[in-house]
């Protein structure tokens, strides 16, 4: 499971889109989830959330794979199950449980927010984060972030291996014991990476920040859909009532 975390920061498909677009779409979705959802109106919120979920899953499918979508759905399911357990416990312990509909809507809203963050991570390349940080004058941090994110996978594999070993060695009760060997491993590994950086440098990529027609079209479509999602459900609900 630890190894899967490494995939969070990696992309598979180079969509050729501008960084502007790749930032704009997840950020507007996040803003929509914060500002436009009305949790007091369950039907309205449900329509909006289902539409947002469809958009997010479509993007994940486009930039990743079916596995990404499946993981996202599992992610949602875990949150909902946790919510249900909490609710059941509240009932058992005699507390006033949260309204079931409210709980589901709020959970999905939070999950969709995380999915938007995931989209940003998977869509935006590490080189683009690096470029962005350098433009902000954070050159050293850009280098650190780039190498850390790139080298995350081997480090996580070592972490997983250390936890297995310590669990068997000490019977699973003292997992904090893994910290020391992991620190030593990370230092040694980091030293090897530093040597490689010395030899190869930190090459920069030309980042596509200027927007093309496809970028304009995508941003307009996203904006239109989100604006409609903000207005249309109210009209539909108004008509129904």
């Amino acid at each position: 499971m630890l190894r899967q975390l490494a995939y969070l920061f990696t992309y598979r498909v180079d969509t050729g889109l501008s960084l502007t677009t790749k930032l704009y779409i997840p950020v507007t979705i996040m803003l929509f989830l914060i500002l436009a959802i009305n949790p007091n109106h369950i039907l309205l919120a449900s329509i909006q959330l289902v539409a947002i979920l469809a958009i997010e899953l479509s993007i994940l499918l486009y930039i990743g794979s079916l596995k990404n979508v499946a993981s996202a759905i599992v992610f949602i399911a875990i949150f909902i199950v946790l919510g249900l357990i909490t609710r059941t416990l509240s009932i058992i312990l005699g507390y006033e449980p949260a309204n079931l509909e409210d709980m589901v809507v709020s959970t999905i809203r939070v999950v969709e927010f995380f999915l938007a963050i995931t989209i940003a991570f998977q869509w935006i390349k590490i080189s683009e984060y690096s470029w962005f940080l350098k433009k902000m004058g954070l050159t050293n941090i850009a280098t650190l972030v780039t190498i850390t994110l790139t080298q995350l996978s081997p480090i996580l594999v070592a972490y997983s291996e250390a936890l297995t070993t310590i669990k068997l060695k000490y019977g699973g009760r003292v997992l904090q014991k893994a910290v020391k060997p992991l620190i030593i491993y990370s230092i040694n590994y980091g030293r090897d990476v530093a040597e490689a950086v010395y030899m190869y440098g930190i090459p920069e990529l030309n980042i596509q920040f200027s927007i093309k027609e496809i970028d304009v079209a995508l941003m307009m479509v996203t904006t239109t859909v989100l604006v409609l999602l903000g207005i249309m459900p109210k009209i539909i609900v108004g008509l129904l009532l």
Partner: protein
Amino acid sequence: MLEAKSLWFRYPNSSWILRSLDLDVYEGETILVIGRSGCGKTTLIRAIMGIGTNIYGGEIRGTIAIDGKMLEDYSIEELRKVIQIVNQDPRTHFIYPHVYEDLYSYSLQIYGDRKKAEEALDTVSSSLKIKHILNRLYFELSGGELRRVAIAKAMLSKPKIIIFDEPLMWLDDIGVKDFLDTLARLKSSGITIVIFEHRFIPLMNFVDRVQKFSNGSIKEVPLDTFRKSYLIQSENRVASIGRSTPGGREVAIIDSVWFRYDSNTVLKNISIRINENDAIAIYGYNGSGKSTLLKVIAGYLKPQRGSVKRFGKAIYIPQLVSLFFTEESVELELKNICRNSKDSKKCYSNGYSILKKYGFDDLMQTPFTLSWGQQEKLAVALSLAAGFNIFLLDEPFSGLTYTDRIALIEYLETVPGAKIVTISSSDSIPLLKGFKLYKLDNGSLIEYTSSSKALHSIDLDIITTIYSD
């Protein structure tokens, strides 16, 4: 092409590691530098590349000339175009996770022009046959593929010399063959190659000269001496590997075990019975499921089907053996591992005797600075002290010279309990005297008699002579 004269090097606050070392490498030749673990091979590479002084702040004396120019007269950008290094762990070469992005950005840095960068990358990726993996993430590649991509990166600047630091480390037989094919291509293109590797047998037919590193300096060893140590034997002599003769009670029964990660079935209907003093070797390529099988036997992973019954305590010693240790001294290791015992005082006093018996007299030494082989031995001794009697060693030979491998095998022979080791390369097989050999292939475990294959045999006496000072 590469000349080091009276070279001395030491890290800050340490003694001299290189001592008046002389090295001459001529244009177009391939030389192999062998030496025991920790003898200073990597330090020599660091000295040659300027890493020793620029990153580690070490002190250097003597001269290094590369392609007729002194090392100190090169800028790092100029140096990259003349000499390149491929590290022991090629994963460390990646600045970006996507293979194409990483190689292209480096190419662009060298050539400063999109078209030239693309052309260089195209040429190198065609020549090293990596075009089909350019669109992948580096941590998804096999060991052999990863090594080829790292070589491709080194080749982008069209260097005249390439240095390989333990290029066969972690590689299985497929990866080794892959590397040797690449090496042959590099040789035919006239590149000067220096290989630092203790696992020298697969390289014997590819190198022009062999140098032995010991006591801080280098001396030439006749190539014939090495070739004599390594014979291809016919199937009739394979029996010399030896087969363990199990006896005693069973300590583990693995019955019809199936295991899968997501949709990938790694173990298919595995059955094996392990007796209390068995010595078992499981041979399989990287990714064949060897580590998974050990973790299933240890009880860390639960099989989806089948059953695992243990009648003893199993311990898993990982590939990166240093991850086994958690304390700053051997004594604290013993105290901590004994805490789980029913009688921790007895465990500690027994453990103290066991450690002494196996040569760990200095209990205050830190396990982290021991050599790879010593760490393997210490991990086994500590486990023995804590009452473990099923020892699962994941690729214990990867970082060891042939003589150290033999020493570890002889050590394991003296340890009571069932020993199961995994190996990914066949050059360790002739050393596994007394081990029962299995092959894990395509998820199935079969007894590996190699009746249809010729196996390698190693003349241990010659190897011991080579390493003796």
